[in-house]
């Protein structure tokens, strides 16, 4: 074998060239930049996927307006902690639906990671000089940020629904977005307006909706939300992080995760239904003790309970502990799986 060697004239000269650049060490500021960049990309990509935004919002709304309305009669009012007295079923199911948003979002971002892995975008991420655990955690934070945006949009809708404004109030609130929808439908047939016009219309509709909200709150003299929307934020973030870690672990372990139907059947539905999201566990215990224990073991139950208590500015310490423990286990597993030397990726043939 011949050794490759540089001849004298090809050896690099010192000077102002790219190759002579010695890389600076990565300080705290660089880490912050990297985290911010990854989260920024996730949010930006999400904003460009309007269908995903809509479907993520429509799903819990269907449950709230249709499913909960029907179940209100069947299940009656709920009287379990943290509720002081009996509450409406819609109020009971709200934390479960927040959990649902987080669950769907986590699974969707894990799917996007499988997709990323195929297209190679995941490789671009992993070639970054930052430690791999940091890159994965940043990616998770990005997913949780997107989920938190959805949760708050959902909470705002719930607030106005709870206020029971009457038709005039709702007409005011929905007017701008309804007009936008009509415009979009017309445009879908006729293609009369440019993309730019539609983007402008969207922005105008959003601003108009915000103005209408302020008008309605002022004119109807609406009270503060019945639940603590601020205290719920840490619970949403922690629960979202746990579900995100689980999804990340799944994305690295399960190859067949590619299609969403599989995830629905084997992950989302069992986790969602075998939990306290839709009905108090005491009711499940009455009908099936075995199922009750399964529900107790389900980390999603504890994520929902954490959110439920946080909505009343209370901490369910047991749930918090379990959620944190599960996060540690799932995240540790995911980092192990993505570890270049020990991980499952190396053994299996790897992304891309």
């Amino acid at each position, binding site marked *: *074998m011949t050794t*490759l060697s540089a001849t004298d004239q090809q050896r690099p000269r010192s000077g102002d060239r790219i*190759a002579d650049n010695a*890389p600076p060490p990565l300080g705290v*500021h*660089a880490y912050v930049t990297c985290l911010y960049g990854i989260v920024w990309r996730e949010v930006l990509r999400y904003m460009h996927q309007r269908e995903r935004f809509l479907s993520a919002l429509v799903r819990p709304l269907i449950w709230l307006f249709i499913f909960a309305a029907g179940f209100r009669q069947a299940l009656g009012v709920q009287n379990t902690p943290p509720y002081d007295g009996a509450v409406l079923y819609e109020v009971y199911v709200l934390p479960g639906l927040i959990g649902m948003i987080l669950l769907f979002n986590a699974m969707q971002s894990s799917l996007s990671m499988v997709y990323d892995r195929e*297209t190679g975008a995941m*490789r671009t991420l992993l070639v*970054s000089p930052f430690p791999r655990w940091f890159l994965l955690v940043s990616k998770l934070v990005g997913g949780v940020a997107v989920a938190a945006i959805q949760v708050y949009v959902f909470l705002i809708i719930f607030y106005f629904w709870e206020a029971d404004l009457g038709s005039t109030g709702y007409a005011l609130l929905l007017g701008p977005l309804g007009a936008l929808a009509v415009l979009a439908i017309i445009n879908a047939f006729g293609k009369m307006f440019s993309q730019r016009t539609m983007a402008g219309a969207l922005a105008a509709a959003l601003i108009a909706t915000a103005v209408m909200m302020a008008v309605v709150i002022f004119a109807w003299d609406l009270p503060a939300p019945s639940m603590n929307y601020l205290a719920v934020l840490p619970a949403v973030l922690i629960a979202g992080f746990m579900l995100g870690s689980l999804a990340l672990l799944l994305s690295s372990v399960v190859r067949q995760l590619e299609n969403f139907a599989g995830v629905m059947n084997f992950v989302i539905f069992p986790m969602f239904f075998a939990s306290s999201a839709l009905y108090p566990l005491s009711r499940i215990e009455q009908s099936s003790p075995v199922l009750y224990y399964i529900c107790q073991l389900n980390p999603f139950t504890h994520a929902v309970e954490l959110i439920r208590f946080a909505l009343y500015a209370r901490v369910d310490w047991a749930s918090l502990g379990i959620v944190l423990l599960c996060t540690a286990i799932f995240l540790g597993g995911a980092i192990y799986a993505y570890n270049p030397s020990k991980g499952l990726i190396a053994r299996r043939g790897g992304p891309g």
Partner: protein
Amino acid sequence: MAVEHRTPEAETPALLVRDVSHAFGDNRALSDVSLEIPRGRFVVLLGLNGAGKSTLFSLITRLYDNVTGEIRIFGADIRRRATAALQRLGVVFQSRTLDLDLTLQQNLFYHCALHGISGADARARTAQALATVGLTDRAEEKVRNLSGGQSRRLEIARSLLHRPSLLLLDEPTVGLDIGSRESVVKIVRSLVEKEGLAVLWATHLFDEVLPTDLVVLLHKGRVLFTGTVPELLAHTEMQTVSDAFRKMTGTAAGTGELAA
């Protein structure tokens, strides 16, 4: 091939791969691969599809670790000093890795962030990189609107943002028309010439090899030859690189991808 461990900084090669083997289960993808890329040289990694080029790239980019042997980028071991090694490495992967719905600029900003570069510095580097590949006037457009050759150029621009000293390109011209291929090759060659970058260019297209290049011939996971083009021709007693390749690998002539 004796390599000093304590060679002075100016003497360490841009990339050193020594005795690297890799297997997926029973499938042996690389067997005792050794190669060296001197600073500032254009090195062509020649091999057919399935020769192990992509596996080698995955190991060098530390997607998974090399179990045997060692890989060093400017003297930094990829396993033990991953950060130092990856900071000096730029990669253009075979598959497209841009965010189609984001603009050119946004794609580049994201990559800057992945290397801890922010603010005015990121903006300056982005502008410079776009100028290098001739896409300045399209900075605000979505990547979706770009042609294949343009997105390839953008990926090269992206790989330059953190000012690496070693550039890896995995089949960068596959699927491009002749004009785009020429412009991509020209951009990378001028980077070697003007900026002193070391380049490892994986390809199965022999017409991309110039007489002044160094060649590494990879076949079925083994390195069959490393050296200059004249050395390859002399060694095989052939007139063209493609004939030399066929003689060394014993592959039949006439496969379309081996066009000279």
